[in-house]
């Protein structure tokens, strides 16, 4: 089998304007959604209590709501979770309840109503902890981004680092935008997925940059555009197969991982799809725009003169 082999180089860079415009529009849409709707942050970040309970028979949500209202929690959010017998209850942070007693109070009341109810999971996060987790998440993102730029600048050249990180942050923005637009719940595992994508999509840019460097050595007469297009075309096969494989695993997680891994896998899916797109259609045009040259990579002994950038 050999599916992704092309006779001629595909002129990816020629579509640069189109793809950049497209990305600009969806990035603005993503930012707009983030600003107006915000993220549906999970209890990990907002603080509060989440309880997962399970009944023997399909749950009567209204009855559960009434029980909660009767013990002074009319603002509880009660939803089905996974199956019709499983129920998830979300309770906002309340000053009078510390983590310990709130879930117990709820459980006692629910048990009185229906003794067959089983407690599956309780998560309580105090507001101060939630803020810290969010802050640490942002710090991690900053650390990883800077690390990647530094590494690529060291291995290739700063232009590669910059174009790559712009493409990557674009992916992250799209993931966040999707989570905001559809109001999917954003929890710690989704944050982990976002950061993993940040590291994973770099792979694409690295493989292409690696080819570009090689092509600069090999195709001495070719201009920069041709070198880039050839590098992308040559690595196309690997791109599709690798991401296809990763996506197979992620689909397996979506199918078998249950609710706990659902949003994690969802974030990875968006990240993988846009990762392919952005490293080809965004990173390369930016690289051209920044004025990458043969001298940047081939003659390492003579450091690139950054003033000479057109």
């Amino acid at each position, binding site marked *: 089998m050999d599916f992704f082999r092309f006779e001629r180089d595909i002129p990816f860079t020629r579509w640069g304007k189109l793809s950049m415009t497209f990305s600009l529009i969806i990035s603005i849409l993503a930012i707009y959604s983030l600003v107006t709707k915000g993220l549906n942050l999970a209890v990990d970040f907002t603080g509060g209590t989440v309880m997962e309970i399970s009944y023997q028979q399909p749950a009567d949500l209204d009855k559960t709501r009434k029980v909660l209202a009767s013990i002074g929690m009319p603002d509880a959010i009660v939803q089905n979770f996974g199956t019709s017998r499983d129920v998830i209850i979300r309770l906002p942070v309340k000053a009078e309840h510390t983590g310990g007693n709130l879930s117990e109070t709820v459980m006692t009341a629910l048990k009185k109503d229906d003794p067959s109810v089983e407690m599956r999971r309780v998560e309580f996060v105090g507001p101060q902890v939630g803020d810290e987790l969010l802050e640490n998440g942002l710090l991690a993102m900053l650390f990883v981004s800077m690390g990647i730029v530094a590494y690529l600048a060291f291995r290739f050249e700063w232009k590669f680092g910059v174009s790559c990180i712009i493409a990557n942050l674009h992916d992250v923005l799209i993931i966040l935008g999707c989570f905001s637009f559809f109001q999917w719940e954003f929890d710690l595992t989704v944050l982990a997925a976002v950061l993993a994508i940040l590291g994973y999509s770099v792979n694409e840019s690295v493989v292409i940059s690696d080819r570009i460097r090689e092509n600069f050595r090999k195709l001495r007469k070719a201009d920069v555009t041709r070198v880039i297009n050839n590098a992308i075309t040559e690595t196309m096969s690997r791109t599709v197969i690798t991401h296809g*494989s990763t996506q197979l*695993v992620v689909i*397996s997680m979506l199918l078998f991982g249950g609710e706990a891994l659902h949003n*994690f896998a969802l974030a990875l899916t968006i990240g993988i799809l846009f990762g392919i797109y952005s490293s080809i259609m965004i990173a390369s045009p930016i690289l051209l725009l920044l004025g990458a040259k043969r001298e940047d990579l081939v003659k390492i002994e003579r450091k690139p003169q950054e003033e000479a950038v057109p």
Partner: protein
Amino acid sequence: MNRYPLWKYIVIAVSILLGLLYTLPNFFGESPAVQISPLRADVRTDTALLQRLEQVLNQQNLPYNGTILEATGIKIRFADTDTQIKAKDILSSEVGSDYVVALNLLPNSPQWMRHIGALPMYLGLDLRGGVHFMLQVDMAGALTKSLDRFSADLRSTLREQRIPSAGIERDRSKIIIRFRDEQAREKAITELGKAFEDLAFQSEEVGGEARLTISIKPEALVRMQNTAVQRNITTLRNRVNELGVAEPIIQQAGADRVIVQLPGVQDTAKAKDILGRTATLEVRMVDEEGDIDAALRGSVPPGTELFTERGGGPLLVKKQILLTGDRITDAQPGFDQDHQPAVHLTLDNNGSRIFKQLTRNNVGKRMAILLVEKNLTEVVTAPVIREEIGGGRVQISGKMSSIEARDVALLLRAGALAAPMEIVEERTIGPSLGAENISKGFNSTLFGFLAVATFIMAYYSAIGVISVVALAINLLFLIGLLSILQATLTLPGMAGMALTVGMAIDANVLINERIRDEIRHGASPQAAIHAGYERAWDAIIDTNLTTLLAGLGLMIFGSGPIKGFAVVLCLGILTTLFSAVTVSRAMVNLLYGNRKLARVPIGTIKISKKSSNKH
């Protein structure tokens, strides 16, 4: 040209064997067990105890599948959880209060495996069920508490040195002593300075009055905070021991936080109740001159508080605390001379001295012993002091049942917390959810692997099979490594494992595509294999290092579930570098390296005219 030296094959073979050996224990499963461990250092678990326990189990007709006697305790295996729970109740009444009897799970792997440290991965709470708490120590509360104690100590020192003062009071984080004249203040500074090294003194004149403002030195403050956290950890450990939990984790997290993890605990309400209790004892004097009727109507005389005595009437108690529970070294339930349930307390040296002086100065007056629990204060007893009590042995007998006496003793023995604590994070996973999470994580990895394997084998034929075998070995290394390190496996960790499968194949895809490229460019089969591996290496190392960078970021800044994911991700990258490159190359070399190849078995390749002419 595609040959490895012998030592490389040996290294690979040994690593695969080790990987197998350390991965194996994970597949034996676990069986329910009861663990009996001594509570104190002077109590031993020995063969005599083991024999006694075995006898009891035989008498009660409870079959067991073997016992393990270790220095840290005795473990007894059972066939099912029903027998386990029954046995736990019987055994705990047999061994008494000197031992912790806890439910546990023991790996079923053979003994020799355990001896070489081949243990199954340590499952996180989300996979085995249990409770995770993060508690925050209230440092401001600890400071207030110690300032109150300093005030009492300062007062008694001034009295001992006969230095007249016009009053001591606490003003937020400072203590202010007012003096009638400057001479007294000068004397106080010298004397108090000698006695209290942790305090800083500053003279002030306010409205013609000589004042001394006292604060705790910054370095002493830091030390006090550390000891407060350490003391709380010790206290929590004692309480958890009373709960009977096998393998609890209690550790400091950051400057003022403590993490408590209780695997397998099902009765979370009881766990929270015991952890959350902040019982302490206070000894104060009863204000017998105060007007109780007026106080009941709402006008409590200044400097006093209104309480109700257990089984008695209302009582006015002075606010000044003479002695706190910190001075208690032991508390045991028992009976007083009238055969009423009582709690016997032993005080430390300082406490004994204070108590002796207190009782000497107040013969004929009533003192109140208060139990402060979760900000609820109760007067346990308010006896009249008949004589001076020395020797540091105090007996509290109020109107309590013997069960209450036992509870109070336990609470006081388990220690008062040095500073108030609050639960700031809780994650409780029911045992059924834990088991479900294991199968979800396992299935995600398994079916993900199968899908990738099928695709890669179809696409790259024989070389594809080698890539898949390398991927399987990668997973073997990863699980083996996690088992050796006894890293905690969580559901996000299992997701990380699945993701490693999906990402690790990238290295082999890079290599295989390179080999195909070389063939297209007209290289001979052996040369193509050689160049494929060589040329792909740069890209492989770059891609994996950048992912490793992301993993490290997650590990450094991540907490809880994120960390579990990051650890697996980072280890997965390390095993990928070895297995995808070295191990797969070894297999290729072994199978194809020594013979003439007509073509590389890497699937059908389209060869375009253009690319073959390129060179």
